[in-house]
């Protein structure tokens, strides 16, 4: 705990990192996942192996890479391989415990859009697209999501399904995953700047923890559906001094992720 003021983005990153406690092998997505995973490696999950889609297993970045391809994820790594091998043998081969993704739009069942806002052929906003997200969502054993929450991002219906979550609900998702031989069991957690969502037996997001300073009104006004709330809603423990120091001094001294 700390008396130092912190931002909502810092709280989001810290909460996301803590969710990784006990995980063994994590596939690191670009952007917010990158800082959350690197914070976890320095705090709750020191033995966790970092996998970067660029072709790195067992990365030990000496600094936080701006991009997920960076010389610091190579030097001192356990193994550096072609991307074909990384996607074939590590991801599709079933060796990834957690795929950690960002998202532009998400629905209540954890289906993700990172492709377009609007019509695909003439979009209002062209987003980056899948990258590896589509196959990560299908093949990583679990999927963690980190994203800022807003009325534009937590929507009733996403404009494009880039990465499958629990589809139309848990029952349908389990059947389709089973029939299709998917290794992934779908999304486990969504960490936002307001709170922590897990998925209930229906495969729908449920707010289990509210970050300090965030209100239920903030949550409701930034979700396009009537959100499920945990019976006993927790309050996320605020960042510790050490977590804040790591973010501010080691991982993101320029504040690129946290402002």
């Amino acid at each position, binding site marked *: 705990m700390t008396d130092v003021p912190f931002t909502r983005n810092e709280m989001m990153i810290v909460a996301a990192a803590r969710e990784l406690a006990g995980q063994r092998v994590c596939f690191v997505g*670009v*952007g917010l996942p*990158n800082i959350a995973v690197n914070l976890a490696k320095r705090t709750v999950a020191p033995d966790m192996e970092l996998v970067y*889609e*660029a*072709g*790195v297993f067992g990365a030990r970045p000496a600094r936080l*890479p*701006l*991009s*997920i*391809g*960076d*010389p610091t994820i*190579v*030097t*001192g790594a356990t193994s*550096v*391989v*072609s*991307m*074909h091998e990384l*996607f*074939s043998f590590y*991801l*599709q081969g079933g060796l990834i415990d957690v795929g950690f993704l960002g998202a532009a739009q998400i629905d209540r069942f954890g289906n993700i859009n990172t*492709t377009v806002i*609007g*019509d*695909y052929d*003439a*979009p*209002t*906003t*062209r*987003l*980056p*697209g*899948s*990258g*590896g*997200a*589509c*196959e990560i969502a*299908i*093949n990583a054993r679990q999927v963690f999501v980190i994203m800022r929450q807003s009325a534009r991002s937590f929507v009733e219906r996403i404009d*494009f*399904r*880039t*990465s*499958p979550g629990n*589809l139309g609900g848990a029952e349908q998702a389990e059947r*389709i995953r089973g*029939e*299709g*031989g*998917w290794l992934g069991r779908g999304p486990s957690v969504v960490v936002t700047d307001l709170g922590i969502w897990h998925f209930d037996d229906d495969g729908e997001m449920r707010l289990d923890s509210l970050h300090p300073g965030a209100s239920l009104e903030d949550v409701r006004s930034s979700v396009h559906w009537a959100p499920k709330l945990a019976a006993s809603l927790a309050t996320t423990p605020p960042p510790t001094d050490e977590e804040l120091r790591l973010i501010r001094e080691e991982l993101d001294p320029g504040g*690129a992720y946290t402002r």
Partner: protein
Amino acid sequence: MSDSKVASMHDAVAELVRDGDTVAIEGFTHLISFAAGHEIIRQGRRDLTLARMTPDLVYDQMVAAGVARKLIFSWLGNPGVGGLGGIRRRIEAATSAPGGGDGRLPRLEVEEYSHFGMVARYTAGAANLPFMPLRSYFETDLPTANPQIREIDSPYGDGKVYAVPPLKPDVSIVHAQRADRDGNTQIWGLLGCQKEAAFAADRVVVVVEELVDEAVIRADPNRTIIPGLIVDAVVVEPYGAHPSYVQGAYDRDNRFYLEWDAITKDEAALQAWLREWVLDVDGRAAYIDKLGPDRVAALRPSGTAPSGVVDYGAYR
């Protein structure tokens, strides 16, 4: 070009990159040949299909300069920073229209995959296969957006997977740490999909930091990523990957990637940048001069990290 494969960037592009070609400048954050991209802009190529997993700044610049008709890709952005305005304005409804006009830019054709799909496409191209199967795309909108992504039944009765078709660029351009005069090329650090993109291509240009004797290559044959057999030109262009990086030689110029965000958001600023840094510059050496020795020196690694030596043994 002479009999030798060693060529200037000008000559390599003049001879090997043609209007209408499908061009792949590959390299996943590492070893991106900005030098080749700039030379293609300077020589005014048109109607190119640009293939690349991550179009990145190099294709943002090339698209803004008007060399491209179509983009084949899997992730479109400035990683960790933001968007690529030069490309987005050619795709989004408010700023582009098919054929252009009305103050709008001509719409760029896009053909979109996931990362694994792009890698698998190059692999199928390199291996002369009609398709590659993969476990991706299930229950997504990607196969609808791109009908080249197709379902395929396993012949063993155990379900469906998806297939992607081969991608065979007319030209693949790859930056590397070193090659010999015949184009035998060695890379360390991130390998991306350069090997697959090179084997899949009809013509291959290798751009290197350093030309080395054949004996250097043959001393460590497991490190050879691309054989000279498939290489048409070897261009020696130190710092040819800037603002991308070369493992062990120079760092990624993250400052440049951050500064690009403001430039790419503004079409006029982007065009001014192209004039100043590409069109009015006669090659990579001049670009590096203009960048200045302090900027370049700041990109040196903070120390060395030697690989160690292994012994292959002599067997006579």
